[in-house]
Structure formats: structure tokens, C-alpha cells
């Protein structure tokens, strides 16, 4: 009987340890969202030097001839909180992060322009990963939001 109680205590200790690890992982941090709005078009062959880090990837994926920084911003938001990034040109990105499984973050994103919601989505991502929202027409090109979760 004593050994059985000892086993129960050991099991409870292991369980509490695992919960502690999970709780730390879930509640420890805030998230920072870096959103860069890019106007992609085929009317001008030059690419904005501020986009040099991502321009090759944009060209490879989308095939437009030029990419110009249109706007953007950053927001640091507590998990289970919400925030907004002004994108420029009347656009805004509403953000609602939540903890998700396996250290990921469930990110509610809503891209509004004027009274219209262009894209409303929920994605589950890890820190450091990139999400692209795009396709809204503007001045003969397309607007692309390059979003990095940190």
C-alpha cells in the first residue's frame, strides 16, 4: 500500500511538471506583428530598396515587375488581447492572437479598407513565420501585406 501511494505521488508530480511546462509556454509572452503593405504592379520595373530583403521572394511567387512599399506598421499584443495596425491609404489590419497547441499562436486577422473587409482569416502559426494577405486592387496593381509573427 505504501509503495502504491508512492507511485501515485510520483505520477502526480510528473503530471504537475508537464502542466507547468505547458502553462509557461502558453502564457509567457506577447506577440509582435510586423505588417508591411506592398504595391505590386507591372507598370514600373523598379523595386523599392526598402523591400530588398523580401523582393526576390515576392518576384518569384507573384511575378509582378515592381514592388513598392505602400505602408505598414507593427503592434505588440498580449496573447488573448487584440490590436490594430494602420496600413496606410485607409487600410487597417485588426489582429487577435491566442495561444494554440504545441507552442503555436492562433492569429485572427482582418484586413479592412473603408467599410469593406477584404480578408478575414484565422491562421495558426509559429513565431518567425510569414503570412501573406493580398489581391486587393490599387492603382492598376495589387496590394500585398507581408505579415511576420514575432
Amino acid at each position, binding site marked *: 500500500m505504501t509503495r502504491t501511494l508512492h507511485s501515485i505521488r510520483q*505520477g502526480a508530480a510528473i503530471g504537475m511538471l508537464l502542466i507547468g511546462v505547458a502553462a509557461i509556454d*502558453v502564457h509567457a509572452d506577447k506577440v509582435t506583428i510586423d505588417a508591411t503593405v506592398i504595391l505590386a504592379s507591372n507598370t514600373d520595373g523598379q523595386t523599392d530598396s526598402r523591400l530588398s530583403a523580401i523582393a526576390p*521572394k515576392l518576384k518569384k511567387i507573384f511575378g509582378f515587375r515592381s514592388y513598392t512599399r505602400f505602408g505598414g506598421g507593427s503592434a505588440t499584443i498580449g496573447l488573448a488581447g487584440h490590436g490594430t495596425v494602420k496600413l496606410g491609404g485607409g487600410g487597417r489590419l485588426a489582429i487577435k492572437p491566442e495561444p*494554440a497547441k504545441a507552442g503555436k499562436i492562433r492569429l485572427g486577422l482582418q484586413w479592412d479598407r473603408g467599410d*469593406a473587409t477584404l480578408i478575414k*482569416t484565422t491562421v495558426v502559426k509559429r513565431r518567425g513565420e510569414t503570412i501573406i494577405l493580398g489581391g486587393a486592387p490599387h492603382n492598376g496593381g495589387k496590394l500585398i501585406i507581408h505579415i511576420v509573427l514575432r
Partner: protein
Amino acid sequence: MNMNRKQAMRWISRSIDGDLAADQEKQLAAYLAKHPDLLAMRDDWTSYGDSLRSEPVANPPPAAAAWNDVRREIRRTDTPREATIPWRATVGWATALVVVMLGWARFMPTSPVSAISDGDGSDVEMVDTDLSDATVMVYKDTATDWVIIWVEGPHGNPSDL
């Protein structure tokens, strides 16, 4: 042939076993006639053999029954270890599992089941747009690992919003 006592005893044994040739039997008989103690010994050995052969022989159990006996004996000797130690370990791990599940329910937020998955570890759970007749495409670029959500108008070139 000059038989000595030692050889006579060997031949007595072979005689009882029926291994002696006829002329050897004659030589042994002649020797025993001169040595009554050896003759008595041969009669005793013969008597012992007859007695043993007359004893009833117990039938051995069938092989299958014998193996069952062996297995039963193994189980009997192993019972204390199997019955107590794994059970105790199971209690410990079951307790750990219950505690983890209770903790999980306490700390983890409820979440909807994934509606859309790109099948590569990044989940897009929901996508919507207010644009009428627009199409929303979701895909992942494997080279950059970017998840791309793209809204496209009904004619591919809608006017500015």
C-alpha cells in the same frame, strides 16, 4: 584360455545380456563350476534383473501435458512479480495522465476544429471576404514557407476599392 576372476565377472554380465558365444558360455560354465561364489553372484544378478523387469513401469505423461505442467510451474513462480510491480507502475502513470488532462482542461483555451489545412503543418482555420463574387485562394509556397491568402475579383481585374 586361462580365465581369471575379473574376466569371469565380465563374461557373467555378457552372459546375462545374451552376448556370449556358445563356446564362451561353455568356458564360463566350466569356470563357475569351480568357483561357487561367482556362480552365486551370477544367480543373484540374474535374480535382480528378473525382479526389475517384473516391476510395473509407469507410463510417462504425453508431451503436451508435460509442457503444460512446465508452463504452469513457470507462471506459479512468476506470479508475485507480474501481479504487483506492473500494477503499481500503472497506477502511477494513470495518475500522471489524469493530472495532465485536468491541467490541460484548466489552462488550454477552447479552439475550433481546423476548417482548412494546407497539409504542411500550417493551418488556415477560416477565410472570408466581404467582396461579392470574389474568390479567396489559400496556398503555401514551399520554397519560402509563406502562407498566402489571396483575394481575387470575379473578373480578375476589379476596380480599386
